[in-house]
């Protein structure tokens, strides 16, 4: 019986260790393919060239246009989600009745459960045509509407996590602020939000990381043209879209095209990995310790 206990523990341990294998697998797959990529293309070229045409006769391997596309859509998404999400968090926490918060919060969270192809459809068939009535020069594929829709998708990430952070600020601080004659607004932004700032920052970083890695919305609505621009009105291409674009064609193993998606993948991975770890670090280091 003791032996069987040991065996079971061993099996459970193995399952837990598989998660390390997954990470190792991801890193190994990305590295091994992109190392042979970087034997053909120098890292300096990859990071500094301003054109990305690896599939064409005149090959250029500058990742910057894809990075620019990714950052542009992400920035638009955050520009939408941060003010809305934070306002919602403050409103629900400080102004809304408990009952209303109980109803509204899960309703908003529905936004996060909708599959992203659906958002892509929405961006392409509703938001873009609508925006085109306001901005006639807007191209059918553009960073703007993809970014806005992505922003709507991540609102609940920011609003829910920030609301959690704000409501975990001890009551006593809120009372202190009210006790001095603060209005709700002054209490929220003068005391509660600063006190919950690390939690809020973490929520924003996680939202950024999510936006950077988002694929289907941009693949459907943002275009497929690597372009080093900050103009949100024209077609661009994100790292994730590039991977999808190549995957939709044939990618014979070992070819340079095949390797480019791993080089793009590792770039994406580095970004999100850095953001995720930044958020852990902030959480660990700056988590307000109230007792």
């Amino acid at each position: 019986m003791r032996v069987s206990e040991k065996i079971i523990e061993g099996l459970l341990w193995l399952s837990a260790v598989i998660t390390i294998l997954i990470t190792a697998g991801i890193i190994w797959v990305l590295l091994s393919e992109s190392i042979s990529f970087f034997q053909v293309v120098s890292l300096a070229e990859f990071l500094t060239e301003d054109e990305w045409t690896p599939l064409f006769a005149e090959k250029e391997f500058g990742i910057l246009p894809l990075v620019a596309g990714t950052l542009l859509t992400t920035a638009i998404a955050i520009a939408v989600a941060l003010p809305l999400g934070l306002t919602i968090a403050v409103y629900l926490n400080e102004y809304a009745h408990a009952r209303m918060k109980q109803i509204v919060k899960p309703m908003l969270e529905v936004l996060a459960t909708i599959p992203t192809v659906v958002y892509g459809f929405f961006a392409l068939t509703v938001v873009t045509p609508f925006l085109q009535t306001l901005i006639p020069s807007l191209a059918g594929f553009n960073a703007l509407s993809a970014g806005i829709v992505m922003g709507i998708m991540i609102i609940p990430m920011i609003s829910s996590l920030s609301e959690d952070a704000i409501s975990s600020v001890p009551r006593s601080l809120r009372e202190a602020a009210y006790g001095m004659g603060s209005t709700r607004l002054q209490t929220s932004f003068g005391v509660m939000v600063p006190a919950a700032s690390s939690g809020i920052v973490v929520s924003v970083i996680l939202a950024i990381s999510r936006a950077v890695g988002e694929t289907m919305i941009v693949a459907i609505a943002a275009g497929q043209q690597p372009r080093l621009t900050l103009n949100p009105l024209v077609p661009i291409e994100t790292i994730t879209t590039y991977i999808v674009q190549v995957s939709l064609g044939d990618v014979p193993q070992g070819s340079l095209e095949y390797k480019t998606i791993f080089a793009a993948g590792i770039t994406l991975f580095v970004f999100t990995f850095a953001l995720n770890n930044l958020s852990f670090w902030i959480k660990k280091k700056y988590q307000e310790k109230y007792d």
Partner: protein
Amino acid sequence: MSKTASKLEAIDLNAYYGDFHALKNINIDMEEKAVTAFIGPSGCGKSTFLRTFNRMNDYIEGFRVEGQILIGGQDIYQKNVRVDELRKEVGMVFQKPNPFPKSIYENVVYGLKIQGIKKKSVLEEAAETSLKRAALWDEVKDKLHKSALALSGGQQQRLCIARALAISPSVLLMDEPASALDPISTAKVEELIYELKNDYTIVIVTHNMQQAGRVSDSTAFFYMGELVEYAKTKTMFTSPKDNRTQNYITGRFG
């Protein structure tokens, strides 16, 4: 509200948390520039009552009062009374020190800043005056811009008092202000209360009979939402009229 008229009164006051009747028909009349202590077993309604004087219960869902609370003769539960104005008159200090997670200086001038005062010289002077009044100046003057959270519990509590004083209230409400402090800090806070009563009307909730004896002029004893007895502290501690008061003071329950 004028500074000189800071007498506190409650007339036929009833308070409810939803269905729960927390304060029952309270009538009391507290002197200006004196210290009144609220005592009574846990849950008897001391804090609830204290908080009616600056309407801190307003934000609790389901809470409501009937009757009147008068400060300087004015009913503060009337429609036209503005809660933020009221609270500038009626400062409050809480059981657990609750400085904002900001610098010491920012804590003290917070109340002024939210009133829209921006002039640095005014703020700095107010900060110094209040910290001095709260007997904290010497200990913190060299680290005004350090985080308030780095202070000891006793210092934090005096900082909270300084913060309350900075907006020049005429009334100070204190809810067990020393219960989270060590004996030495407690002594300092008590001393401070003793000095402040020359200028402020002070109400203090305490569980510590000795403390009530030391700092207060009058004492009110509450029991299960009722005001059982209200008298000069000396009188009450030597010859309580009500049986329950007697039992409580001698430590039979609570």
